[in-house]
C-alpha cells in the first residue's frame, strides 16, 4: 500500500519578497519603479511650483492668440492675424517639406554614389570616396551656411535683371530666374480652373484642396490602372500563345492622352516670373533658404547613405555576382536584379535612422532664416509670448511624432522587402 503525501503547504510570508529568489527580482523592479515615479513627480511639481512662483503658470492658451508676425514661405494661407497655432502649423509644413525633399534627394544621390564607389573605374571610385569623406566629416550646419553664403554672394540680385542691357539673364527660354533671393520657376495655371474646396472652415488647421489637382490625379490614376490591365492581358496572352503583342504604344496613349486632354479642357498654361518693382513676381519662388537647407541636408545625408549602400552591397557574397555572370547577365543587370534586391534588407534599417537624422537636422533651418517649426513655434512664438517651457515641449512632441511616423513607415517597408525564410 502506498501513501500519497500532499506536498507541504507553503504559506506566503512577507520576508519571502526579499529572501525568496522567486520573488526577489520582481520586488526590486517594483521598488525601483516607485522610486522613479516619485522622482518624476517631484521634478514636475517642482517645475510647476517654481514657474508659478515666477508668475508664469504653465498654460497653452497663447496658442489661440493672434501671432502678429509674417512668415515668408507658406504652403497654406496665413497672415499675421492668424493664431500662433496656425503659425506653428505653417512651420511644421515647412519642416515636412524640406525633410521630404531632402530624404528623396539624399536617397537617390546616396544610392548612385554608393554604387559608384564600388566601381572598377579607379577615378570614379576615388572621386566618390573624396565626396563621402568631404561631406560626412564637416558639420552639416557649416554646409548649410556655406551653401547659403555662396547663393547670396555669387548669384545676381533681381535688380541685375533690369533693363535691356542687363548684367544677368534668365535661363531656359526666359522662364527661370536664378537670383540671390532664390530661384523663380514657372507655375502651372488654369484658365478654366475648377476652384478650391475649403476644409475645416475657419479652424487653425484649415486648408484648401485644388479641384484641378484632384481631377488630374483621378484621371492619371485611372489611366495607369487601365495601362496595368493591358499589361496583364499581354502577359496572359504571352503565356498562352508564346507571343507577346506589341503594347507599348497603346499603354503610352492610355496614360498620356486623357491627362493631356484634361489639361487642355482646364486651359493649362504656365505663369512665368516677371521682374516687377523690387522683385520677380509670378511663378513659383523657391527661396534660397529652402534651397540651401535642402541641398546641404541632401548632400550631407547622401554621404552616409552611400556608405550604407556600399556596406549592403559588400554584404552580398561575391559568389552571387559570379553565379549571375555565369548565367550570362551583364554587370548592370546583375546589380539591378541580383545584388540590390538582396542588399536592401541590409540597407533599410540604418537608412531609417538616416531619414530620422535628416528630419531632425532640418531644425538647423534658422541659421539661414528658413521658417520651420523651430523658427516659428520655438522661435518667434516663444519669444513673443515668453512661453519657453510650453513651446519647447510642444516642439519636442511634434518632432517625436514625426520621427515615430517615419520610423513605423520604414519598418513596415522593411518587413515587406526582407527575405522570406521558409
Amino acid at each position, binding site marked *: 500500500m502506498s501513501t500519497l503525501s500532499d506536498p507541504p503547504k507553503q504559506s506566503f510570508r512577507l520576508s519571502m519578497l526579499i529572501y525568496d529568489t522567486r520573488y526577489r527580482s520582481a520586488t526590486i523592479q517594483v521598488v525601483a519603479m516607485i522610486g522613479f515615479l516619485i522622482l*518624476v513627480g517631484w*521634478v*514636475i511639481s*517642482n*517645475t510647476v511650483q*517654481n*514657474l508659478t*512662483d*515666477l*508668475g*508664469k503658470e504653465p498654460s497653452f492658451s497663447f496658442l489661440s492668440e493672434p501671432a*502678429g*508676425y*509674417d*512668415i*515668408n514661405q507658406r504652403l497654406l494661407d496665413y*497672415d*499675421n*492675424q492668424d493664431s500662433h497655432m496656425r503659425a506653428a502649423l505653417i512651420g511644421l509644413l515647412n519642416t515636412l517639406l524640406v525633410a521630404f525633399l531632402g530624404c528623396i534627394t539624399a536617397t537617390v544621390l546616396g544610392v548612385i554614389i554608393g554604387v559608384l564607389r564600388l566601381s572598377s573605374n579607379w577615378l570614379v571610385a576615388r572621386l566618390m570616396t573624396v565626396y563621402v569623406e568631404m561631406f560626412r566629416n564637416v558639420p552639416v550646419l557649416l554646409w548649410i551656411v556655406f551653401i547659403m*553664403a555662396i547663393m*547670396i*554672394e555669387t548669384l545676381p*540680385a533681381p*535688380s541685375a535683371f533690369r533693363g535691356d542691357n542687363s548684367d544677368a539673364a534668365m535661363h531656359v527660354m526666359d522662364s527661370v530666374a536664378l537670383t*540671390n*533671393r532664390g530661384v523663380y520657376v514657372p507655375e502651372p495655371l488654369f484658365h478654366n480652373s475648377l476652384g478650391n474646396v475649403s476644409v475645416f472652415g475657419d479652424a487653425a488647421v484649415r486648408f484648401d484642396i485644388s479641384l484641378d489637382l484632384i481631377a488630374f490625379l483621378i484621371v492619371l490614376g485611372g489611366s495607369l490602372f487601365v495601362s496595368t490591365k493591358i499589361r496583364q492581358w499581354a502577359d496572359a496572352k504571352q503565356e498562352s500563345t508564346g507571343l507577346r503583342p506589341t503594347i507599348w504604344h497603346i499603354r503610352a496613349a492610355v496614360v498620356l492622352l486623357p491627362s493631356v486632354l484634361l489639361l487642355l479642357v482646364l486651359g493649362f498654361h504656365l505663369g512665368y516670373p516677371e521682374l*516687377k*518693382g*523690387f*522683385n520677380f*513676381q509670378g511663378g513659383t519662388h523657391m527661396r*534660397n*533658404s529652402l534651397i540651401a537647407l535642402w541641398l546641404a541636408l541632401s548632400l550631407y545625408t547622401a554621404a552616409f547613405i552611400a556608405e550604407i549602400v556600399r556596406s549592403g552591397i559588400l554584404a552580398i557574397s561575391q559568389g552571387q555576382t559570379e553565379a549571375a555572370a555565369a548565367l550570362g547577365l551583364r554587370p548592370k543587370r546583375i546589380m539591378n536584379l541580383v545584388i540590390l534586391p538582396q542588399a536592401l534588407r541590409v540597407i533599410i534599417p540604418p537608412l531609417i535612422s538616416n531619414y530620422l537624422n535628416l528630419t531632425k537636422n532640418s531644425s538647423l533651418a*534658422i*541659421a539661414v*532664416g528658413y*521658417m520651420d517649426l523651430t*523658427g516659428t513655434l520655438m*522661435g*518667434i512664438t*516663444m*519669444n*513673443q*509670448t*515668453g512661453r*519657453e*517651457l510650453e513651446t*519647447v*515641449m510642444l516642439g*519636442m512632441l511634434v518632432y*517625436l511624432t514625426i520621427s515615430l511616423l517615419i520610423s513605423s513607415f520604414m519598418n513596415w517597408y522593411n518587413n515587406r522587402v526582407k527575405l522570406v525564410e521558409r
Partner: protein
Amino acid sequence: MNNSVFFGALTVAGLAAGAAAAGTLDDVKARDQLNCGVSTGLVGFSAPNANGEWEGFDIAVCRAVAAAVLGDPNKVEYVPTTGKTRFTALASGEIDMLARNTTWTFSRDVDLKFEFAGVNYYDGQGFMIPKELGVSSAKELDFATVCIQTGTTTELNLADFFRANNITYEPVPIETNAEARQQYLANACDVYTTDASGLAATRATFDDPGNHVILPEIISKEPLGPLVRHGDNEWGDVVRWTLNALVGAEELGITSANLAEKAAGTENPEINRLLGTEGNLGEMLGLDADWAQNALSAGGNYGEIFAKNIGEDTPVGLARGLNAQWTDGGLLYAPPFR
C-alpha cells in the same frame, strides 16, 4: 530615452527657476562680478573693440552698475545674447541684467515678467535702403524684400505697418545684426529694418555709408532700456537709480572732469545727496555712500556717454533729439534724489 530627455529639460528649467528667486544684489556682491547681457555686436551700442574689450552705449550702463555695486567698472562679465536668447538668459538667471537695446513693451513688462529700469535711449523703427533704388517713403515698399531680426518688436511693428498701409512684403528673418548686414550689402534684401539708432550704427560700418538712406518714416515708439527680472525689487532699484544717477548728473552739471571737485561738497544739496556727502541714499539702496560717484567715474554722465559712443562726432553720428534733457526739449527726466 525620450522620456529622460524630457524630464531632464524639466529639471533644468526647475533649477533655473529656483535660482532666479534669490536676491540678485547679494549674489552679485558674493560673486564680485556682474553678469550683464549685451547684444552680439552693434557698433556704438555694444561691440568689442580692437583689443577685445566691450565698449558702447549699452556697455556703459553695465559698467556704471558694476561700479556702483562693486566699486570697479571692470568687474563685468559680458554675455552676448541674440534677440531670441536674451529673455531666456535673463529669466533663467544666467545674467543679472540685460542692457541690449531692448524695447520696453507692455507684454514684456507684464506677461514676460521683467522689470524695466528706465529708458536709456528713445528710439523708433526705421528703414534703410540703398540710394540707387530711389525710394523716398516706406509706403513705396510694396513687394520689397525686407531683412529683419527675428524675435524682436520690429517684427510685429513691420507686420502692423504693412497691414495698415495695405501693402505686402517678403520678410527675410535673420538672427544677428552681422548676418543682416551681409545680406543687405549683397542685395539679398532691398530694405533693412530695425531701430533707427541700430540702422545708423550699422550704416557707420559700411564702406560707402553715403549710398544708403534711412527713410523718414519712424513706424514705432521704441523706448530702449536696461531690464531685470520681475520680483527682485532691491536689485531693480539699484539698476534704475544708477541709470537715473547718470541722467541726473548731466542735468546737475556733474561731469567726469569736475566729479572729484563736486564730491568734496557743494552748495547744491541735491548734488551732495547724489554724491553721498549728505544723507544716506547709498545705504537705502544697500550700497556704499559713494555709489553714484563710482557710477559716474566709470564713463561720465549720460551726455558724456552719449557723445563718446553714438554722438554726432562718432561714425554712428546720432543727434540727441528726443534723448536730450527735458530742460533742452528732450524726454530725459531723472526723478529727484531725495
